[in-house]
């Protein structure tokens, strides 16, 4: 379970998150809805530890995110996924290389295996034949699907 207690975050003196409390239970799908600029992304980035809250607590299964050292945070993040607003694909890599990147970093898979896995994924999101394209050569929607 993920628990958020009195989360506060602001930028340049302007409060964005004003004391958020929430609980995310295992096995449930949660939605965060709000107007543009209301702080949904800021909230998620706080949950991931990409932003440091001004106040409050973020607790993962009884363990406070703010008390975790960088290695523990890293391990925790490996279990998370996030689709960024700008897709966050690496400009210098092709679509296929972007998909293979985590496999290359964290598995012992050989290139052929990684490529096969990347092609399987591309097939699932209807992006066959885009393997060698650069992120800038595909549409925003396609970028989101690759991400």
């Amino acid at each position, binding site marked *: 379970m993920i628990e958020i207690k009195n989360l506060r975050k602001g930028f340049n003196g302007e409060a964005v998150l004003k004391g958020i409390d929430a609980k995310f239970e295992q096995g449930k799908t949660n939605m965060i809805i709000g107007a543009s600029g209301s702080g949904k992304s800021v909230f998620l980035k706080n949950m991931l530890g990409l932003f440091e809250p001004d106040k409050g607590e973020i607790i993962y299964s009884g363990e406070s995110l703010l008390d975790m050292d960088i290695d523990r945070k890293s391990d925790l993040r*490996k279990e998370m996924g*996030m689709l960024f607003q700008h897709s966050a694909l690496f400009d210098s890599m092709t679509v296929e290389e972007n998909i293979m990147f985590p496999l290359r970093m964290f598995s012992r898979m050989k290139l052929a295996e990684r490529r096969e896995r990347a092609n399987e994924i591309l097939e699932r999101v209807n992006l066959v034949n885009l393997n060698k394209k650069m992120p800038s050569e595909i549409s925003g929607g396609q970028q989101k699907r690759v991400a």
Partner: protein
Amino acid sequence: MRFLRHIGKYMMMLIGVFKRPTKTSVLRELVLKEIDDLIIGSIGITAFISLFMGAVVALQTALNLDNPLIPKSLIGFATRQSIILEFAPTFISVIMAGKVGSYITSSIGTMRVTEQIDALEVMGINPLNYLIYPKIIALLFYPFLIAIIMFVGIFGGFLASVYGNLVSLEDFVVGLQDSFIPWHIAYAFIKTMVFGILLATIPSYHGYYMEGGALEVGKASTTSFVWTCVAIIVANYILTQILLTT
């Protein structure tokens, strides 16, 4: 106070660069790519500038030699000394701050703006190590570039003065060999190593910690160029004081 905060943050960044290293096979590839981008990619322009600067130094020296008591070999001597001691290590580093420094700041800054750095963090990768460490290692090869620049600069001086009929080949070579102190070469390369580290880390700092959008990437590149130049010039003075006057 703000300056001190930046220095502290810069130091913390340097510590972070050496923590949680990236997979060796990936790192090896990144280092080779950076050597290609930062060092090999800079040979052309720096050699071109160096060739002409060497020629101009030789010409200026020759044109200012009015006194018949001063030997013509001074042209070779002055070219060698100015190229080895200052032009190759310092002047080329300032040029590199513009070429390589802006590239580093803008590439890392764009990654920050487009959340690619956040994506690395979410994947559990240390972005500091992944992005900056290969650049530091690549720029440790910077003295090889400077060695080429030294040769090309002196060659430029030779072409301008000997083929411009300002000095004979024999006099130029005598000047090149006159009062040669091997420590000067070591001094130049020590300076180059320090400048290389500054060239890799200061622009990386400005790119990594930038905030805002595309416009701020441009501003960060300019700021990074200014601070890299300042750091190079100050380090040049301190190193000269330490290495040549003691």
